[in-house]
């Protein structure tokens, strides 16, 4: 980043002093705060979060209606369909959190991230506000970092919205209490809550890769829509490729390949192998596409 400071227009730093009256690190924080506020105040963002919050409500009500007559869910035998953990919801509302996350992680969550990340740079360029952001003395690297941090914050918020909505619906519609791990052992409700929080964090971390990919795409174009569409398109493509058995040699390197490994946290003892691989892959994607986005954004001609 020091390199970038050197790159800054000489007068800009003066401007920062004048404008903020503060030193640079705090100024970055201010930039992040304003970015966060802009992002989370947008109707688009709120609508996305509302859709995400609706998923567990729908799942919860559907399960409640389905099992209202005393029947049990997933009675179709061991091959019973539906997202993971769905058969346990009626016995413990906490499982709705896991089911909702398992249901939203493949598409809803990454799609929302794709929209936010794709919009990050390209959206500003599209609206013609990017150059004004760059006139401010933040520097391109710092602006990019801020954008990425905002996207990650959205990952976390989106996941938590799903989890909290699911927990609320689960608590309202179903009993809570001690729960059985998928290994058959029992854990207390408090530990279950702890694991639910851990799972939400892991799910949020699973989205780091998509966020970096979306940010990179976003630096390539001046059209916000194009960036969002490309990111979501890539997401769907990768998900489809992940289902093709002939590509099994490549699949471990897809960002979505280990997504559902968060369920391993519900094993006793926890099975860490795939979780670690998942986080490693996300880190790798963040490094590769983050640096590619930086290379592109800091060298590109900003024309809008």
């Amino acid at each position: 980043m020091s390199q970038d400071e050197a790159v800054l227009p000489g007068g800009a730093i003066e401007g920062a002093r004048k404008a903020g009256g503060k030193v640079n690190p705090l100024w970055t924080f201010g930039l992040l705060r304003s970015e966060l506020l802009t992002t989370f105040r947008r109707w688009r963002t709120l609508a996305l979060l509302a859709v995400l919050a609706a998923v567990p409500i729908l799942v919860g009500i559907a399960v409640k209606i389905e099992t209202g007559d005393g029947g049990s869910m997933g009675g179709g035998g061991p091959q019973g369909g539906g997202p993971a953990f769905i058969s346990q919801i009626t016995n413990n509302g906490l499982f709705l959190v896991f089911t909702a996350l398992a249901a939203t992680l493949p598409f809803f969550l990454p799609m929302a991230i794709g929209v936010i990340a794709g919009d990050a740079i390209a959206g500003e360029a599209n609206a013609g506000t990017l150059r004004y952001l760059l006139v401010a003395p933040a520097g391109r690297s710092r602006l990019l970092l801020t954008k990425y941090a905002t996207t990650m914050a959205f990952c976390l918020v989106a996941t938590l919205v799903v989890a909290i909505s699911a927990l609320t619906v689960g608590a309202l519609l179903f009993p809570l209490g001690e729960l059985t791990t998928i290994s058959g052992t029992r854990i207390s409700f408090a530990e279950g809550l702890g694991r639910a929080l851990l799972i939400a964090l892991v799910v949020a971390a699973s989205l780091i890769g998509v966020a970096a990919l979306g940010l990179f795409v976003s630096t390539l174009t001046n059209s916000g829509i194009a960036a969002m569409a490309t990111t979501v398109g890539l997401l769907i493509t990768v998900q489809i490729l992940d289902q093709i058995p002939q590509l099994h040699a490549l699949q471990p390197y897809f960002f979505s390949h280990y997504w559902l490994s968060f369920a391993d946290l519900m094993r006793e003892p926890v099975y860490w192998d795939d979780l670690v691989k998942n986080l490693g892959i996300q880190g790798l994607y963040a490094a590769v596409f983050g640096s590619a986005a930086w290379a592109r954004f800091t060298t590109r001609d900003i024309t809008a």
Partner: protein
Amino acid sequence: MAPYESDDSTTAVEGVDDLPSGRRKAARYVVPVTVVGVAAATIGLVPAIADSGDPDLPKITAEQLIEKIAQSDVEQLSGTVKISTDLGLPDLGGLGAGFASGAMASGSGDGSSADPSAKLTELASGTHTLRVAMDGENKQKLSLLENASEYSLIHNGKDVWGYDSKSNEVFHGTAEEAKGGQEKEDVPATPKDFAEEALKAVDDTTSVTVDGTAQVAGRDAYRLLIKPKQSGTTVGAITVAVDAKTGMPLKFTLTPSSGGAAVIDAGFTQVSFAKPAASTFDFTPPKGAKVTEEDELEGKGGEHGAPKSEDELRKEFEKEFGKDFDKDFGMELDGPKAGDKTGKVAPEGGPEVIGEGWNSVAVFDTGGEGVPSGAEVGGEMGGFLDSLGDKVTGKFGSGTVFKTRLINALITDDGKVYVGAVDKDALVKAADSGK
């Protein structure tokens, strides 16, 4: 044109870097490329570096190693096992699994029930991760890890629980506390049995050697190489990695004589000989779970995919949990041969056996008509049937050979079935001699 001006000024200041803009741009892209390169190198090299060091262990003879296995008294253990099975079965889902399970069931000398538990027969193809834990005779647990679900088989005292977390169904059976004597006689289940059997086999049709050392699940191990001396068998070699400290077999690999990938590769990826937590073996059916008691199940004949019969379950359980888990798994798959290699006569009611050693072939008389040929069935199904097997003729008449990479079966038109880990010619020879 204000924006362009500001842009220009930025460019101008950036130009202070002394580098032509093209080269500077290129230089920045070096970063992501480097990251990719480093990542690729790490992924490629780290396992290679980690694998390179075969541990230095004192030299040992095959007899000493077998003795070591025999003396192994591992009572407490927990670990993760990865099993890859590649029988070369056509991927037909249930049909393929059914065929394999048939072979497995008959192999273990249990001709009666040809529908073993669906869960454990899944192991017959693909790669699976299992978790095992044991604490003495009366506490064992075996879990089959699936996507976001798990199938657990828990033996604690006199209870045997099967729990399928995906469907939230529970199976409950009982076991006598001091149990298992009978079934253990059928197949060599303890390391001691195995070692004795293996020793007998050394002079006969098999060569047993120590083939260096290896690292398995972070532990130093000797590699015991078992090779058939006869030709005609589909078994190329069996390698068993034996823990140098405890004498516990850690990895079992069976390669076919036709070459290529291992047919069975089962080994610990992580193992600990500490006492597992007692809670591991505790099980109470979760609220709302559908519990099937073994008595009900006998009546209904196991309508769910859950374990079919308690007997079967226990058998599988015993086998999976024989102290030498890995070898047992092998025995299960190449049962007829493994049993006979050691000169054991098949139990009463079991199949008749032709040939000896690795080339022995088990014969069943189904009394039926054999497999209908494609022409009889007609249509698409007929073509499908024909594509599965090769037609053969010989002194015995004619029949169809069904092939996998390890076990081949000849079903004659008069309803006899010849099964063995031998090639097609050997099957025909066996059928001829049986006539």
